[in-house]
């Protein structure tokens, strides 16, 4: 009996020393994807990432729902970063529908977005820790996330999937006394993440394991189209909050963290620095926010656009620049919603980074790319 194997599994006529490993989708170090790795002894000679295990058709679903009911399901690709993943869609819908957002709502959005970025990075960091076999670095961020999740629960009513941003502002105003609680929690959170340096970032074993592994040069980082922390770890000063400020980011003092090394260690350190920057931004936003005022422009039921229009908006999410392209054809539902996700862009660099690396470096290099399998598949 003959049968054809799927392309990734097809046996190749190569030297018999080479062993093909299927890392994933049921592998503890893969996430919801598969990496087909060919190893020669301890060295990786070829790597073929195979995403697509969690494709849920979010973009197609968006064509059957109107601009408001699209919100809860469009944040599903990255539930830990749900405010940021929804941000470009909301900005685009506002431009299409011609809505001017109140000033206070913009600040609330910035606060929610930065809190969510920290929540996402903490989750990412926890998994990075356990991928390197550092169980304390799994438990600490997973526990300290709770501080910010509690804040988001106070703010939006939901712990993970907030569905807080709507075209026209945010769903609810801040609860009373939120500013004080937020400032206190964020200050404590910043103090806490600074302690991670002692146990994780300054750990000699971690440094010797991740320094000079999986180096992505500046040219390659630009050529592959990587974004976010991966691009900034390769020495490119690129942050959409500074380069293309949206909402009120132009009124805030945002510092971009850049590292020149481009190795696995730099890619893991830049998100950590980003979290401290987020804490700074939250403190500034809390200070500059108008103390009262409306946070939402009420829309009519089933809002429509004037005619055939399209808009592309992008924001800096926890993983990089996240774009959303919306085409509207004067119906309550969008004609097409296309998300340009940073995870997939960052994954493109993986085969080139892993080639020639040791098998022991695979988890650290793979997860340092700030890749979220569900977002890449949408």
């Amino acid at each position: 009996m003959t049968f054809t194997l799927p392309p990734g599994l097809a046996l190749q006529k190569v030297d018999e020393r080479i062993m093909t490993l299927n890392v994933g989708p049921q592998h503890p170090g893969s996430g919801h994807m598969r990496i087909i790795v060919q190893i020669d002894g301890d060295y990786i000679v070829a790597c073929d990432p195979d995403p697509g295990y969690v494709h849920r058709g979010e973009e197609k679903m968006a064509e059957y729902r109107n601009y408001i009911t699209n919100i809860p399901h469009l944040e599903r690709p990255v539930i830990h970063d749900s405010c940021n993943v929804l941000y470009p869609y909301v900005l685009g819908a506002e431009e299409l529908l011609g809505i001017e957002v109140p000033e206070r709502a913009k600040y609330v959005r910035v606060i929610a977005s930065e809190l969510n970025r920290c929540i996402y990075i903490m989750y990412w960091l926890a998994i990075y820790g356990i991928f390197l076999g550092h169980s304390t670095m799994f438990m600490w961020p997973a526990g300290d996330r709770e501080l910010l999740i509690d804040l988001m629960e106070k703010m939006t009513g939901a712990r993970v999937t907030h569905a807080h941003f709507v075209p026209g502002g945010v769903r609810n105003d801040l609860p009373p006394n939120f500013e004080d609680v937020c400032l206190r929690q964020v200050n404590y959170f910043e103090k806490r993440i600074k302690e991670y340096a002692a146990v994780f970032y300054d750990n000699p074993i971690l440094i010797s394991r991740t320094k000079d592994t999986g180096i992505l040069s500046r040219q390659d980082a630009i050529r592959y189209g990587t974004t976010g922390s991966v691009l900034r770890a390769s020495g490119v000063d690129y942050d959409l909050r500074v380069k293309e400020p949206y909402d009120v980011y132009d009124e805030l003092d945002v510092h971009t963290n850049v590292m020149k090394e481009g190795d696995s260690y730099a890619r893991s350190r830049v998100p950590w620095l980003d979290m401290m920057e987020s804490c700074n931004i939250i403190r500034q936003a809390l200070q500059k926010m108008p103390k009262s005022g409306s946070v939402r422009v009420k829309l009519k039921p089933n809002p429509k656009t004037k005619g055939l229009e399209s808009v592309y908006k992008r924001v800096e999410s926890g993983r990089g620049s996240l774009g959303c392209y919306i085409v509207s054809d004067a119906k309550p539902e969008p004609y097409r919603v296309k998300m340009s996700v940073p995870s997939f862009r960052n994954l493109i660099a993986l085969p080139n980074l892993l080639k020639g690396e040791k098998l022991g470096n695979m988890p650290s290099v793979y997860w340092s790319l700030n890749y979220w399998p569900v977002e890449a598949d949408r």
Partner: protein
Amino acid sequence: MSVIAPNFKLSEFIKSLLDNVFWIVLLLVLIGIPAVMMVLFFMEMPVIDGELLTPFLALTWLADPSRILPVVKAFMATDIFRVMAFPGFGFAALLAAGTIFVERKMLAKLQLRVGPFYCGKFEGILQLMGDGLKLISKEIIIPAKADKPIFWAAPVLFVAAAAAFVAFIPVAPGWVVADVEMGLLGVFAVIGFFPIITILSAWSANSKFPFIGGIRALFQMVSFEIPLILSLLGVVMLTGSLNLSQIAASQSSFPWIVFLPVGAIVFFITMLAELERIPFDLPEAESEIVAGWLTELSGMMYGLVQLGTYLKLYAFAALFVVIFLGGWNGPMVVPPFPAELLEEGIELGPIVAGPFPGLPLFDQAMLNGTLWFVLKTVAVIFFILLPRGVFPRIRVDMLLNLGWTKLIGLAFVNIFIALGLLYAGVLGPGGLQ
């Protein structure tokens, strides 16, 4: 109201209970008692106080409990007690179980969580028993293309090798299962079995990830055995003996770690590597190779390997204590046995219990030695567990580099220190000890 058994009837419940009791009594009378009699018929019974131990004599214990004591003492002098219970398997398994509990709770406290909490009411103290029951009740799945006899045998061999290691450890003066002249060489021989068992288990599973894990374990154990052996040579030179009991006894005034700290450090690091503990747990690195050479093991096979691992951990910690920390030696803290209990008995209100001529079961020196030995072993185990909360895993090339260059070099430095101490006359014949 919800009930667990809706058709419950008390009369039927009592009837079923009586049925069970009937069958148990019947089987006991028809099979159990004849079997016991057969055993007694063929077995040579011990002689206690000049009397042959017969079943009748054993029944007289019911009338005079103090007569049990000589029998217990006679039993404790047997080899089977030493192997099964005190310095051997039972004692080691108890300490290993305690180690697992302490590891979980300590790591949990380090990581700002509570750890096992509900099983057993107090701080999840019965969690290990629950885990054991779970592992026993799970189905054992054997890979279809596995080499089945070897795959089955490997976990058993692993526990057997770990238990053989335990047998060499002297816990108190005279309390050791195998008091052999070449004890340390025996330990090295037993340690040499572990890589073979590991690679057999990994290879026979006929699966990729266990194979890679097994190869890694082989690399690691073979390359760290050399510094392990070299780091202990200094102590052997100073004591002039390979007998572990003599090595422990030679440290009555000060432990060897005072003179040979380099050797102790090298031995501790190699010990971590031999035990596959973080930061050297590459053979089980879950983010790279699933669970390494344990990937295809399931159910109680996995449980046996875990038991063997922790027995090995205890044995290595105990070896460190015996060789570098002075074994059972320590200040006498156990009070002497009250003499009046032997001669007059103890007054319990209106009656006088005793006297108990069979007591004490253990002498003072043995209890004191065991106490110090356990305290030191627990301290060493604590330091073995600690890196798990602090360090990430290292890589194969870094590991081999560490083992083949740095540790072997340090082990030779240690040997030269020992030689220097010997020739300078500080230690050894005519020296301090």
